[in-house]
C-alpha cells in the first residue's frame, strides 16, 4: 500500500503541477458576457480595465463582481459591437457617470495639481537641497590666518600657559 503510494508520487506531483498551471486567475468576467469575436473581446477587456466601478470605487469593472460592474461590462461590449471606437465608448460612459469613471483621470484644469503637483514639489525640494549644498560649500573652505591674527593667537596662548602655571 505504502509502496504503491510512493511509486505513484511522481505521477501525483506531475498532476498537481499540471493542475496549478492550468488554473487561471479568477476573473469577474462571466462566460456569458464574453463576445464571440476575440479581437472585440480583447478591446472590451482593455477598456474594462480602465473603467472604475462606481459602486466599489477602487476596482475596475473588469475586476469587480458588483452587479453594476457587470452591467457596465455588458454596455462596453454592446457599444463595441455597435461599432464604437475605444474613445467613443469611454466618452459614452463619461457622459453618464462623469470623468470619475476613468481610473486614470483626464488631464484637465481641475486635475492639473493632481498630475503635476508631485513633480513640482519634487522640483522645489531639489532646488532647496541644491541651495543648501551650494551655501555649505561656499563657507566650507576657511581662509588661512593672517600674520596679524597668528601673532595675536600666539600671544594669547603664552598668556594662558603662564596663567595656568600660576594657578596650581
Amino acid at each position, binding site marked *: 500500500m505504502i509502496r504503491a503510494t510512493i511509486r505513484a508520487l511522481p505521477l501525483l506531483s506531475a498532476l498537481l503541477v499540471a493542475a496549478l498551471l492550468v488554473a487561471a486567475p479568477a476573473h469577474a468576467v462571466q462566460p456569458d458576457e464574453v463576445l464571440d469575436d476575440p479581437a472585440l473581446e480583447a478591446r472590451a477587456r482593455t477598456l474594462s480595465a480602465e473603467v472604475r466601478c462606481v*459602486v466599489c470605487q477602487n476596482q475596475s469593472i473588469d475586476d469587480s463582481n458588483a*452587479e453594476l460592474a457587470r*452591467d457596465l461590462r455588458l454596455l462596453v461590449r454592446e457599444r463595441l459591437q455597435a461599432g464604437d471606437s475605444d474613445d467613443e465608448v469611454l466618452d459614452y460612459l*463619461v*457622459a*453618464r*457617470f*462623469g470623468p*470619475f469613471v476613468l481610473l486614470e483621470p483626464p488631464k484637465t484644469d481641475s486635475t492639473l495639481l493632481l498630475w503635476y503637483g508631485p513633480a513640482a514639489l519634487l522640483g522645489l525640494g531639489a532646488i532647496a537641497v541644491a541651495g543648501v549644498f551650494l551655501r555649505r560649500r561656499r563657507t566650507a573652505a576657511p581662509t588661512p590666518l593672517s600674520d596679524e591674527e597668528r601673532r595675536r593667537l600666539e600671544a594669547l596662548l603664552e598668556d594662558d600657559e603662564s596663567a595656568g602655571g600660576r594657578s596650581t
Partner: protein
Amino acid sequence: MRRLFALIPLLAAVGLIAALGWPLIEGRNPQELPSVLLDKPVPAFDLPALEPGEPGLASGDLAGKPVLVNVFASWCAPCRAEIPRLQGLAEEGVTIYGLAYKDDPEATRRFLEVLGNPYARIGVDRDGRTGLEFGVYGVPETYVIDAAGVIRHRHVGEVTDRVADATLVPLLKELAQ
C-alpha cells in the same frame, strides 16, 4: 528675514493639512459623486408600467411641472426606509415618479402593497438600462426635475427628513415659482 524663510515648510504643511482635512470636517461623503447630468435634460427613456393597463413612465412625462423621480427597488433596504417619508411628500402635493430599478415586478408589487405606494406613476426598468442612462450607481437615488424636464438635483441614498426638509422641498418650491 532668514528666520521667516524657515517658517515656509511649516506653513506649507499646515496649509496642506487644512486643505485635505477640510472636506472631512465639513462632512462631505467621498462616496457621493456629483451627477454629470445636472442641469441637463433627462435622458430619453420609455418604460412599461408595473400594472397592465396603467400608463408607464417616459422622459416626456417629466416635463410640465417640477417632480421627483425616485429610483427604488424592493431589494434595497434604504428604499424601504424612505417610503414613509416619500408618502408624506406625496400627501403634501409633490408628484413623485418611481423607477423600479432591476427588480422583479412581482416583488415590486408586494413591496408597495406592504409599505404603501407614494408614486404617481411607476416605470419598470427591469434590466437597469434607464438607470445607466441616468448614471445611477446606487439605489435609492432621487432626482429633482424642473418643469422643463431638466435635472436640477440628485440625492444618492435615503431621503431622510433632513434631506427632504433642507434640500428637496425648498428646491421644489423654488422651481414651482
